[in-house]
């Protein structure tokens, strides 16, 4: 019996205009988004390789270690291969960081800032298509599941047979879910196939497991709207009312809640602006430099060359003192900058966390965060990359300084820098299990919503007036 209901529902949907249309729309959108993703990734990769090579040749062409230490080394952030599916915040955050003495490394030159056109016109990735388009389609597939049949009078006819209500609703749900899966999965699998065929896109086993979880996430997300559709359809007696309620719920979930959450977190937990932080840094730097000047004056006053002292020796002593005090000052400034910066970052991260948790009420936000975690294009991976650069800075400056010191005293021609023993920056991306663990809350939220809606639909249908 159940099989017959599923079959009937499936055939019903597949032969409808709605299905044909959905299939076409999904195919075009999904393939287009993956194609655009691949294109963007390849151009990002090219840009990344070019900037690494440029940095390398810049370092190699430096005449001395002195110049090398002054120039510093530039670390570029490699593009994530899964940004082909989920762009995340990649375009909004910086891609290059300078590492040199007395300079707090920071990732700058985001795609948005180098060419504002990128931020004004949004991007189209698979996650966006799923979040906006497929959720809307899920609603369109289910809004009249029950109340539509009631309106056309077929519901009471079906139930006049010896057919339990629970079986009817399960059969209908399963049947239309399968018919929704076809327009989603066929182009998606095709898109993934295309992705795997591109020669310069390397997908290892870990990437494939991430993609697997992403697909599961997309399915869960669509199921949330699907089950919500059935639930609302069993609550209302007219399909026009049902679609209206569903669309308003959709607008709220997809466009309003994420916006409201960011706004609310800004009000709940305000963060000082970058300008305030910069002003604080500048003020501290000025204060320290002022102190240094005063101390130097005092030093000269108290240590003025005694009569009969060799002026050359005094000069050396003075240079030594100047170097030491300058080093001490820049250490202090570094420390203060790092402290200010880390406090600022911590506050900002806390604000982000509040916004994230608030907006998770909406499955659309849960989808966004989980997919960014899984594809490594979220804020978390960005911070990890920045931290790896911060850890690299002392290693590199130590190397550069030791080289510089050793060659500084050479009277003859300065040697050209030898980069063979230069410490390299390394970054290990977050492991799959860690990313998956971070996505667990989002998966749980979606599962809970699905269970709630299905249970609600079930109970409401048992009490439904089918006449």
């Amino acid at each position, binding site marked *: 019996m159940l099989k017959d209901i599923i079959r009937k529902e499936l055939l019903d949907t597949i032969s409808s205009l709605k299905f044909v249309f959905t299939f076409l729309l999904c195919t075009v959108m999904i393939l287009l988004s993956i194609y655009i993703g691949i294109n963007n990734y390849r151009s990002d990769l090219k840009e990344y390789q070019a900037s690494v090579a440029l940095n390398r040749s810049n370092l190699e062409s430096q005449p001395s270690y002195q110049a090398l230490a002054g120039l510093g080394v530039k670390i570029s952030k490699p593009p994530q291969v899964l940004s082909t599916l989920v762009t995340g915040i990649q375009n909004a955050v910086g891609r290059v960081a300078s590492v040199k003495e007395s300079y707090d490394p920071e990732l700058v030159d985001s795609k*948005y800032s180098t060419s*504002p056109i990128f931020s004004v016109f949004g991007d189209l990735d698979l996650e966006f298509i799923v979040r906006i388009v497929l959720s809307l389609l899920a609603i369109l597939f289910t809004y009249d599941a029950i109340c539509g049949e009631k309106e056309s009078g077929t519901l009471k006819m079906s139930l006049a047979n010896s057919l339990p209500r629970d079986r009817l609703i399960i059969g209908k749900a399963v049947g239309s879910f399968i018919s929704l899966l076809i327009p989603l999965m066929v182009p998606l699998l095709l898109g993934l196939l295309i992705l795997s065929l591109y020669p310069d896109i390397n997908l290892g086993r870990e990437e494939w497991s991430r993609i697997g979880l992403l697909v599961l996430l997309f399915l869960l997300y669509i199921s949330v709207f699907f089950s919500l559709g059935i639930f609302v359809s069993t609550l209302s007696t007219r399909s026009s009312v049902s679609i209206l309620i569903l669309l308003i719920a959709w*607008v709220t979930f997809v466009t309003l809640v994420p916006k409201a959450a960011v706004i609310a977190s800004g009000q709940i937990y305000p963060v000082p602006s970058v300008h305030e932080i910069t002003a604080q840094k500048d003020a501290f730097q000025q204060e320290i430099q002022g102190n240094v000047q005063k101390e130097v004056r005092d030093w000269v006053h108290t240590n003025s060359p005694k009569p009969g002292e060799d002026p050359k020796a005094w000069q050396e002593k003075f240079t030594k003192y100047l170097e030491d005090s300058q080093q001490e000052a820049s250490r202090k400034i570094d420390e203060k900058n790092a402290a200010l910066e880390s406090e600022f970052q911590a506050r900002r991260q806390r604000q982000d966390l509040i916004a994230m948790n608030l907006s998770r009420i909406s499955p659309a936000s849960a989808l966004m965060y989980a997919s960014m975690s899984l594809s490594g294009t979220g804020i978390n991976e960005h911070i990890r990359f920045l931290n790896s650069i911060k850890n690299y800075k002392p290693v590199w400056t130590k190397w550069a300084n030791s080289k510089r010191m050793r060659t500084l005293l050479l009277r003859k021609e300065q040697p050209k820098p030898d980069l063979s023993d230069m410490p390299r920056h390394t970054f290990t991306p977050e492991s799959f299990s860690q990313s998956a663990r971070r996505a667990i809350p989002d998966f749980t939220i979606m599962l809970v919503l699905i269970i709630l809606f299905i249970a609600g639909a079930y109970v409401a249908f048992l009490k439904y007036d089918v006449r």
Partner: protein
Amino acid sequence: MLFHIILRELRSNILSLRMLLALVLALTVFGLGTLVFVANYKIDRKEIEHSSQQEIERMKAAAAESVSSLANWGFNQDFGPRSNSFISNSREDNLPVRFMYDSFKVDRFFVWPGRNPLSDSCQPLDWMFIVSIIISFSVLLLAYDTVSGEKEARTLALSLSNPVSRGLVLFGKYVSVILSTILVLVPGMALSLLIILSSGRIAITRGTLAETGLFLAAAILFVACITAFGILTSVLTHRANVSLVAALSLWLLFVVVVPNTALYWAQKLFPIERMENVMQRINMERENLEKGMPEGWRKNSASLVENYAKLENEFLASEMKVRRDWYNQMFSQYERTRLITALSPIAIFEYLCEAAVGGGYLRFRKNWLDMNSFQLQFLEFVKAADAKDPESPHAFSPNSWGISGKPVDFSDVLIFQEKAPSIQERFSHAGLYLLILFFYTTAAFALSFVLFVRYDVR
């Protein structure tokens, strides 16, 4: 007759559930959006005033030091939030709002630094967003079943059995949807203005009211266009749920597909040079110019200042030529991409709002041009100050010591003032978009009319 049809339709719309829901939703978002605007505006304003004050202080310091410092130091000009951005922020969060200039050049612009990358993706809840996304959605919901729904309910045949022309019936339905939407829109806008008035932080001037009027006019045109598309989906099919699918996919096309693929087309069709290449070209030109100088010129102390100034001026001219070309490429890429997005009435509405409030790209372009002509005045001013000093070598060039070392009185120094775009500038900015929108509206409505005349109403 038309009046009766409109009245009847309007009455049935107003009493419907969707109208009530749309009204509640609109009032909520208008209220929420404005509350947030009021809270944020003060903070943003303070920040911008602080940074502008710092720049003034730097300028004072430069003037007190010397003409040379004033000419060379390089200052930032920030463009703060507009007090009318509750109407439309026009993506100013993503556009450059800081220019860097000195007396020789305006060479760089910046997007506001240090924004939260998470909130970057989210536009503020301004009137423009509410109308272009939420109201357009509700308009389609009101319009999709005006014809096919009545056919299903069998009232269409009844109406048309009276002596009324089909065109009149269709037009009556069309006007009534627009009027119902205005009934949702106006209370929302009024609520928003009330919140701003009662906050006492932002003055509502006559100019703001005029801009509100312009916005309302743009919104009505936009609603008329979307309604025409909604009615078109309704006369295309005989069943309301198919009309619904068509209407929603049209909405998706306008809101999602067209704006979000524009960037892809922009990169494919109008590619521009990368920043790194431009910088490399500038450096190469510099090297060439330096090679072109006479042998051993640095050692010839008699004409060193003049030669140095000559070289610096050549550097400046060559760099500015490359930069200007690049910026013009960038602007033209942006403008052409906007023309592609004009396929979507929602994008057009955004550009109309930009013109109504004098913000967004219109403001950026105006400020950029104004800044460039201001720089010329500033240069003249500095040159005049230099000319007054008999001890100066008068070898005027960037980074040189050929400019007077005497201080300048700060009260004479020119300071840039932002001017809002004039009415003519706004209209000429909006003109093309208005035409396109008008074309879409008439085309969609004419097509609906043709289809409705042949519609099987039974």
